[in-house]
Each structure stands twice: as structure tokens, then as C-alpha cells.
């Protein structure tokens, strides 16, 4: 019997897909990698929903998202340094925004994106979850498995480093 309080994966995909993709993009700096990562996350969500017991949904969802990102990093074993805007025709379209629209929107904030990629991954992850995804510190703590104090410290240091690189 399906629990009515547990969302279906279609609902998750519709409501959170965009943020999942943007999290992946801001962490990797690569639209293709972000697309692959987002699909992986949604597949894991689909598999995991069957066993999901209602609790903090955001924490659960972003733990999956973040773990998928770390698995991807381990697999690729490289630091992402690809600049924005290369090979626009590689982005698959379907019933979605035109590639040049996506890239135009991605080109805004290029300097911020570059500065983000210079941050150590744990700081980058913290500021993206806080300021791009919009999670509360408690949710970030659940997603990353680190204490609140560490979350706070990483956000603060990440922001200071970012500001330093932007100035």
C-alpha cells in the first residue's frame, strides 16, 4: 500500500529536478556531467522511494544527490575545470529549452562559477546547498552527515574564499 505522504518519483522529478540539475551543474561546472548526474540521482530516488520511511524528505533527497555527486567524483577522479560554453550541440534537447537558451543562462555568473570551482569540494558543496539549493543548515547537516557546527563553518569559509576570488 503506498503511503500518501510519500511523493511519487514523478512528483520528485517535477518539483526537484531543476534544483538537482543546478546543484550538479554548480558543483561540476559541466552541463553534460550535470545532466548525467541528475539522471543518476532520479534513478536512485526511484529505487529508493519504495523503501523510504517518511522523515525529512529534503535531507533524504539531498543525501542521495550529494552521494551520487561524490560517487561521480570518485569515478572520474579529476577536478572539473571545463569552461562554460563549449560544444553547445552536445546537450540533448527533447521537449525542453533550446541549448542556446540554456547556455545563455549558464554564461551569466561565469566568474562566480569559476570561483566556485576553485573552492575545496566540501566548501563548494556547503555553499551550493545553502545558497543555490536553499537548504537550511539542519537539512545540509542531514544531507552531508556532518554536524551543524561544521556546516556553519564550511558555509562561512566557503563564502569568504569565494568573495576573495571574486574581488
Amino acid at each position: 500500500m503506498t503511503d500518501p505522504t510519500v511523493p511519487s518519483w514523478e512528483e520528485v522529478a517535477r518539483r526537484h529536478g531543476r534544483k538537482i540539475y543546478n546543484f550538479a551543474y554548480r558543483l561540476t561546472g559541466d552541463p553534460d556531467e550535470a545532466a548525467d548526474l541528475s539522471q543518476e540521482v532520479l534513478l536512485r530516488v526511484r529505487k529508493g522511494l519504495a523503501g523510504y520511511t517518511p522523515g525529512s524528505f529534503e535531507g533524504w533527497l539531498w543525501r542521495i544527490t550529494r552521494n551520487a555527486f561524490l560517487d561521480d567524483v570518485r569515478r572520474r577522479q579529476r577536478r572539473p575545470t571545463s569552461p562554460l560554453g563549449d560544444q553547445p550541440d552536445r546537450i540533448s534537447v527533447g521537449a525542453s529549452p533550446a541549448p542556446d537558451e540554456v547556455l545563455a543562462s549558464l554564461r551569466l555568473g561565469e566568474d562566480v562559477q569559476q570561483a566556485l570551482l576553485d573552492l575545496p569540494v566540501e566548501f563548494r558543496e556547503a555553499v551550493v546547498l545553502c545558497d543555490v539549493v536553499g537548504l537550511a543548515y539542519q537539512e545540509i547537516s542531514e544531507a552531508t552527515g556532518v554536524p551543524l557546527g561544521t556546516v556553519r563553518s564550511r558555509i562561512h569559509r566557503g563564502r569568504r574564499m569565494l568573495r576573495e576570488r571574486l574581488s
Partner: protein
Amino acid sequence: MIHTGDRLSAFLDGELPAEREEEVRVHLTVCPACREELAEVQEARSALRSLPLTEVPFPVDDVVVRGAQRRRSRVRALAAAVTAAAVMAGIVLASDEPPPQLDLAEIAGQHTARVALDPAASPVRLVVAVTE
């Protein structure tokens, strides 16, 4: 004077309990260094928050279908390979029978192949150990 450190970000984000928030507020009135640090993290936060939230460049609800299709076609390919191998060895696949252990040495000649068919699994799993 004890400076506020990372409490500044928590303060900015409304993540401090009321008394701590008040302490930071009071401290800021007398500490230009911390005011400056607050301004810095505020700038970084604004820069991040003004990043465009781009649309997903693929149809989101197509993801799972495509994933499932990939898995199903892999399974079909495997099932086809199993059937082909069984036909070549002259074995008829029967899904209700218990898994037969066959020594194909007599049939294959040089190679010994032990074939265990697990019809209970879906799809049919073929385990082949080939020894030369």
C-alpha cells in the same frame, strides 16, 4: 574582544537562536572588523543567490523511462545470448524444471562447460564455467 567568526554566516542566514543573534547584533555595533567580514559574506551569498537557476536540458520525466529501457534491452540481449548458447548445446530451456547441472564435455569435446540454469530468476540466468 571575541569576534564572531562563522556565527556571522549563521546570523545572516537566520540560523542563530534568538539570544545568540542578539549577541552578534550588539557586537557588530562596536566592531568594524566583523562588520566588514559580514559585508564580505553577504556579497558572496548574494552572488550565489543571483546565479540563474537554469532549466533542466532534458525532459525530466523521460529519465526513468530511458533508464528502465536501457536495463530491459540489456536483459533481452542477455536472454537472447542464453537461448542461443542453449540451442547450440542442444538444451531445451524449460522454466518449470529444477536447475539441471550438465556436463557438456561430451558434447563440446575439448572444453568442459558446466551450465546451471536458474529458471526461478527472471530473466533466466546462465552461469557458465569454462575450463580448458
